[in-house]
């Protein structure tokens, strides 16, 4: 069985969803009630791969909402309790969706392996970052040519390059895609220098230096709050892949020649009988989902019960190959630019 740990995008959405599901006691409660609410296994699903295999899964809502981000202990408890529930339910491999993996990483929850009477078995969990990185790279490879961007001549900026997904994207782009130039952008310089050394290339630039030069921008970091982007200084065409969480590259940024694509989203080949992706505001909630969630499904399809994506900077090209091949075999495709660009991609 695979598992997905997710949460609502806001407190208001969470209350609405809880009411729909019949969890009136939580739905009617204020934020303090939600802070004390246990995680809920809200849905069981069955997924059939075009390759023939059927798998069972469960969606766990951690009862975390982004309004709790400033409550350090609460956020930590929500993640650990949801993970404990997944393990108690005997789920083999569970993806940490949305803020779950961000909290896990940033609050260093590896030191909290004991949750009550349970010792969390890390091999039962995956961040899903390998699949997310592969999907972003594939979105770039498919969609840039559709806009007339020649990858061999393209300059690509990776914003958040030193992160787990960002560094994997950089490795793939420099080894497999052969882009002309790679701009490495991140807040901290030291990890960028290490990455540059590992890659044997790449130019370290500030965001303001990189943006006007880039034909393609891959965002795998959340944008700084005060950031202002001068649209007139962006190249045309410019492909922007929004691979961070939450997805905060607003459509207003898109304009003549600037195309924003939601990164790290996949679509399954048939409808899945679930209701939970509506929470994530997917355009086609019956089929579309975060690539990190799909990774748990892929690992279950492949009977690969291990913490496939775990820790920082452990994503290898071989792992991306493995998960990418599984993704295609089991009926997932990447989210691409809309309508008139589709013909070119096909």
């Amino acid at each position, binding site marked *: 069985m695979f598992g997905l740990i997710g949460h609502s*995008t*806001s407190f208001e959405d969470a209350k609405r969803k809880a009411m729909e599901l*019949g*969890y*009136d*006691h*939580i739905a*009617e*409660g204020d934020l*303090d*009630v939600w*802070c*004390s*609410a*246990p995680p*809920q*296994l*809200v849905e069981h699903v069955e997924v059939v791969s075009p390759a023939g295999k059927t798998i069972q899964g469960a969606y766990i809502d951690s009862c975390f909402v*982004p*309004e709790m*981000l*400033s409550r*350090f*202990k*609460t956020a*930590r*408890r929500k993640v650990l*309790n949801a993970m404990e529930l997944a393990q*108690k339910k005997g789920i083999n491999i569970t993806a940490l969706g949305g803020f779950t993996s*961000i*909290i896990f990483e*940033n*609050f*260093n929850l590896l*030191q909290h392996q004991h949750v*009550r*009477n349970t010792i969390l078995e890390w091999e039962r969990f995956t961040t899903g970052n390998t699949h997310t990185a592969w999907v972003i790279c594939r979105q770039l490879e498919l969609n840039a040519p559709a806009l007339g961007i020649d990858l061999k001549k393209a300059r690509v900026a990776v914003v958040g390059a030193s992160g787990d997904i960002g560094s994997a994207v950089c490795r793939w782009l420099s080894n497999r895609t052969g882009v002309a130039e790679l701009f490495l952008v991140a807040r*901290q310089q030291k990890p960028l220098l290490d990455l540059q050394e590992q890659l044997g290339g790449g130019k370290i630039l500030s965001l303001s230096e990189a943006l006007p030069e880039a034909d393609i921008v891959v965002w795998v970091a*959340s*944008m*700084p*709050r*005060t*950031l*202002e*982007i*001068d*649209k007139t200084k962006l190249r045309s065409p410019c492909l922007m892949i929004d691979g961070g969480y*939450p*997805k*905060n*590259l*607003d459509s*207003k*940024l898109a304009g003549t020649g600037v195309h924003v694509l939601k990164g790290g989203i996949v679509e399954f080949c048939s409808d899945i009988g679930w209701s939970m992706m509506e929470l994530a505001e997917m355009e086609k909630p019956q089929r579309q989902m975060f690539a990190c969630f799909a990774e748990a499904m892929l690992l279950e399809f492949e009977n690969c019960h291990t913490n496939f994506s775990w820790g920082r900077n452990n994503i290898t090209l071989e792992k991306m190959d493995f998960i990418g091949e599984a993704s295609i075999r089991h009926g997932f495709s990447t989210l691409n630019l809309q309508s008139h660009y589709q013909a070119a991609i096909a």
Partner: protein
Amino acid sequence: MVKVDGTAYFLRRFMPALQSLVSPTLEVEDKPLEGTPDFTAEAYKDAYSRINAIVIEGEQEAYSNYVSIAKMLPDEAEELNKLARMELKHMRGFTACGKNLGVEADLPFAKEFFSPLHGNFQKAFSEKKLTTCFLIQAILIEAFAISAYHVYIRVADPFAKKITEGVVQDEYLHLNYGQEWLKANLATCKQELMEANKANLPLIRSMLDQVAEDASELHMDKEELMEEFMIAYQDSLTEIGLDNREIARMALAAVV
């Protein structure tokens, strides 16, 4: 110019929190997550005199409640009396914890604290309402104890920590006993179970409210206590065989 700030919902609402989340200054390995309380401080000992008394009184009442249940279930009296004796052992353990810190337990306070729940148990016993007795003692009180002990273990002094770790394992046996009985009799006892929940779950909530300030002095958060309790209670009701919607309806009594 496109001003990104203010355009996206998330960016607008949550970025300050997110930025503090990822800020290197908040790296948690540099800071203890919960400071250890000063076990010798007067404020700590004052709060401890009431919390310790609640625990001692709780174990004492658990002893007499299991003896009462044994009278209603003569076939299982031997097992129930064994469970009861374990509660006495716990009581002695917690009495030692107070002595170890030089604290005298405020037992009159604790008797008053438990009196509404104790009264409900006594009434159910006199009416031979076995389901209600099991729900109050073996589910609600045990789940309350287990959750509070789990939170306490994280911030207890070394002596009390060791004692409490031993106790919490026993309490799971007690919870399990009640669960198994209710599960086996669910077909006939569900209605009474729902009614007993409605009458008694709000008492647990108000007991938590009453103790919140003293618990906080011991570095136990009310929010965490409530969450731990709801997890233990929800798990228990699931084990008994209730479905998600029934549990949700029952849990409502804790909120309204």
